[in-house]
């Protein structure tokens, strides 16, 4: 499928250059930690006692760590930058990439939005539980980590892709692919 607003080559080179700039100015890119920071910020507001006593939250319990820092602003920027670009280039986005109900999913699992959203919610839980256990996600471990040739990131990349490929092949097993 060749259609896209920009090609994978342009996007790949741009992402590589952005990673270099980020590593020069502050540090490599990372996203998943900010879900912890967001949760920690909420926990410290809603139930400070729980937040202070939790062994993991305590690591993010210092004010400078759980407040709005560089990393959190980066993820907030993704929301703003992605949102603005999505509106500017809405007419150029391929039809197949639009909307909340992917055609492939609908063909396989039916038109139920509830089913799609529940699968996404469950998928989201697994994503962040796994990312925190492993210490990073696609951006921190794969893009940034493999670019630094970190051993942990090679392990993460290999296991993640292997399991994700097996899961996808299982979900679409009747398609003979």
């Amino acid at each position, binding site marked *: *499928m060749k259609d896209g*607003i*920009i090609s*994978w*080559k342009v*996007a*790949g*080179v*741009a992402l590589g250059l*952005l*990673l270099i700039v980020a*590593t020069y*100015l*502050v540090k490599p*890119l990372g996203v998943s930690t900010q*879900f912890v920071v967001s949760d920690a910020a909420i*926990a410290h507001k809603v139930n400070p006692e729980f937040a202070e006593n939790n*062994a993991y939250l305590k690591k993010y319990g210092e004010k400078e760590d759980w407040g*709005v820092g560089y990393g*959190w*602003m980066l993820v907030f920027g*993704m*929301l703003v930058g*992605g*949102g*603005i670009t999505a509106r500017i280039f809405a007419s150029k986005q*391929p039809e197949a*990439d639009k909307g*909340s109900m992917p055609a*492939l*999913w609908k063909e396989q699992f039916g038109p139920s939005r509830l089913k799609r959203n529940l699968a*996404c*919610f469950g*998928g*989201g839980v*697994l*994503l*962040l539980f*796994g990312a*925190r*256990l492993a*210490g990073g996600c*696609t951006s921190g*471990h794969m*893009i940034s980590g493999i*670019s*630094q040739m*970190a*051993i*942990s990131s*090679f392990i993460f990349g290999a296991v*993640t*892709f292997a399991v*994700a490929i*097996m*899961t*996808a092949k299982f*979900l*679409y097993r009747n398609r003979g*692919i």
Partner: protein
Amino acid sequence: MTLVIGFLIGCVFGAILFLGGASSYRRIIGTLLLKDMWIMKLMMTAMGVGTLGIYLLDLGNLANLSIKPAYIWGVAIGGAIFGIGWALSGYCPGTCVVGSSEGKTDAIFTLVGALVGAFIFFLAYPALEATVLAPANLGSISLVSVLGIKGIWIAIPFSALLLFLAFFVLKDRYE
């Protein structure tokens, strides 16, 4: 100032992911079904460029490296759980943020699930720490520290390999 830099880098990051189609279900699943290699090629190109640039910076001690520790069990089991979530939703933590910004409700559900997943991890952390996080921790090692030669000499061939795979080896195949 760092906050502004973070915000601007994030804006560009979000824009690249959107424009490059990384928040698209058919692209992600296409790659995981090994049919449409778009995302794989995009990532390999980014890593090829990134590796070379980071270790060029490192020659002048200008790279703020952040090598994650290799605690084998946690990284492998976490990666496996992550992989299931990735294939199920079609998003990763970064692209679900971008998908949400586009107004995709399935991305928003992924985002909320991710916040809950992080919370469940807090609760499980005390039990996980001694069993999977602490043992078999090799520390913050990289190919550079393992091989013990200057980073750029590994970065050049590794980067060339990634770009070669992305541009010449990986091919899309359809029914």
